[in-house]
């Protein structure tokens, strides 16, 4: 290729670059700040953001549809895989929704164990987010430290459930295993450790100047916006509105161990940081209290394979906010329809609102201020009907496809 054609191509490329004052900038689908593929089309004016257009659906797995072809029990494991972080919240939301269709009473001990796991999960999810704030603001050290401390919580989760992430612990009628012997001191130690660290991080986040300037006043929303756009979870509570499913509609053992709803008033990222630290502390308290009051007895009741017909709605307070399940049964061994609304879906509109008027440098921290879980949000489109099909693309075929694709593009 001669230099002349190169420069011609460059001229043609100038159109693509859009040097207009209102530049378009892709944020995603694959971007280092996003842990999961999602596309946000940002309209920029210099560094300032004018508009945000989300386009979701890059990680659709067809879970709602797939659920209709599986039995009730198999779906517990399926729904757990909607999200890696709040897997237990998904499984208990589904399990309790189904339980509410029947007359079975869940043993008290099972309720307590569910509470303990759910709160451990909340701690690990919040710590994960706090660490990631460090990553998004370029403070790698904070990220490493918090994740290092999060390991203590994950170790306890592994000791109780057998796995760090996909716990596969909840089932209909209780939990699948009792708490292991001698877990109480370990749990107490872990919560004590986490509390100490939280104290340190709170002091760090108030005193570390670079972190303060990056979070204070950034991504501000007020109560009016929050009421209009209905975010859920910490994003709502950081504006001062006290809503928490655990208190208002207690599930598991939350009617006996009542959590205190923490709120902040500022509605910015700094208040989200403080709020999540508060909630981690509160969760530690709940775990301690639950372990103290832990009743003796069964941890599980036997459950039938077919569920009586009816419709049930259920929601839990996942670490990210209200997680909503709608279950419809026609009395068979398979659900007729399961609808899942994850917190991220509810928070997406608010995040869009939060971003407007900020600079590009704020995008990662604001966009992820809602603790997004895009994998949770996208569930449906492409699905694999049953077994026997392999969708593996062999390396050679992929290479051929790539060559052909570029040839076609060059030709057109």
């Amino acid at each position, binding site marked *: 290729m001669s230099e002349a054609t190169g420069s011609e191509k460059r001229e043609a490329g100038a159109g693509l670059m859009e040097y207009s004052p209102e530049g378009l900038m892709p944020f995603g689908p694959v971007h280092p700040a996003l842990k999961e593929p999602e596309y946000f089309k940002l309209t920029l004016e210099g560094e300032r953001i004018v508009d945000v257009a989300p386009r979701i*659906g890059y990680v659709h797995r067809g879970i709602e549809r797939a659920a209709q072809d599986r039995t009730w029990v198999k779906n517990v494991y399926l729904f757990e895989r909607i999200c890696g972080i709040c897997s237990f919240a998904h499984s208990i939301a589904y399990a309790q929704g189904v339980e509410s269709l029947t007359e079975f009473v869940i043993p008290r001990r099972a309720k307590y164990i569910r509470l303990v796991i759910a709160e451990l999960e909340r701690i690990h999810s919040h710590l994960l987010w706090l660490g990631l704030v460090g990553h998004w603001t370029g403070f790698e050290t904070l990220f490493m430290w918090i994740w290092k401390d999060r390991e203590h919580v994950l170790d306890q989760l592994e000791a109780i459930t057998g796995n760090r992430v996909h716990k596969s612990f909840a089932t209909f009628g209780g939990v699948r295993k009792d708490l292991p012997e001698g877990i109480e001191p370990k749990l107490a130690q872990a919560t004590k450790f986490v509390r100490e660290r939280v104290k340190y991080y709170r002091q760090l986040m108030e005193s570390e100047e670079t972190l303060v300037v990056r979070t204070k006043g950034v991504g501000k929303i007020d109560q009016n916006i929050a009421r209009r756009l209905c975010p859920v979870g910490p994003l709502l509570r950081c504006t001062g509105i006290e809503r928490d499913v655990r208190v*208002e509609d207690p599930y598991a053992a939350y009617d006996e161990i009542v959590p205190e709803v923490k709120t902040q008033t500022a509605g910015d990222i700094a208040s989200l940081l403080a709020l999540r630290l508060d909630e981690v502390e509160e969760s530690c308290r709940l775990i301690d209290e639950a372990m103290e009051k832990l009743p003796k007895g069964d941890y599980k009741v036997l459950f039938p394979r077919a569920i009586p017909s009816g419709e*049930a*709605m259920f929601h839990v307070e996942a670490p990210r906010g209200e997680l909503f399940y709608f279950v419809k049964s026609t009395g068979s061994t398979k659900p007729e329809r399961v609808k899942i*609304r994850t917190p991220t*879906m509810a928070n997406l509109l608010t995040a869009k609102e939060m971003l407007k008027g900020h600079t590009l440098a704020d995008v990662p921290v604001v966009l992820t201020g809602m603790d997004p879980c895009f994998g949770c949000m996208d569930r449906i489109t492409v699905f694999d009907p049953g077994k026997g099909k392999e969708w593996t693309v062999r390396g050679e075929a992929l290479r051929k496809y790539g060559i052909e694709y570029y040839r076609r593009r060059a030709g057109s």
Partner: protein
Amino acid sequence: MPGELESIAASLEGQVSKGKKYQLISVKPQRVVEACKAVSALPGFYHLSTITALDLGKEISVYYHFWRGREFFAVRANVSKDNPSIPSVTAVLPSATLYEAEVADLFGVRFEGNPMTGRKLLLPDTYPKDAPPPMTREADPEKIRKMMGLE
């Protein structure tokens, strides 16, 4: 409080049915906006949880979920599959935008007045126009895959 929903239902020509933990108002699709407005204005309600669509064969029923305390409430409207059109509630509940877009993508229900109408939210851009929406009973994954040229 009992009675509130009945009065709403009476004014909108709808019926109230009760489940174990929830109450349901069934209304005609045209009255959905009024019904949602009335329910969300009741004391103690604060947000629209989500919008669910259910394929009943000839009809698609659309649920609007609300909750208060320990109770769930839902507004339900059935639209026919031949002309799946329902007024959008985004004017009264702005948070419904994405939920409506999701249902529109997956069930082909048209929400008249939704700001995201005509834009895809979830489905891939290559999803064939003449294929049935993926969550309806007519949708056959194998056929859709063929239409998309994935086979």
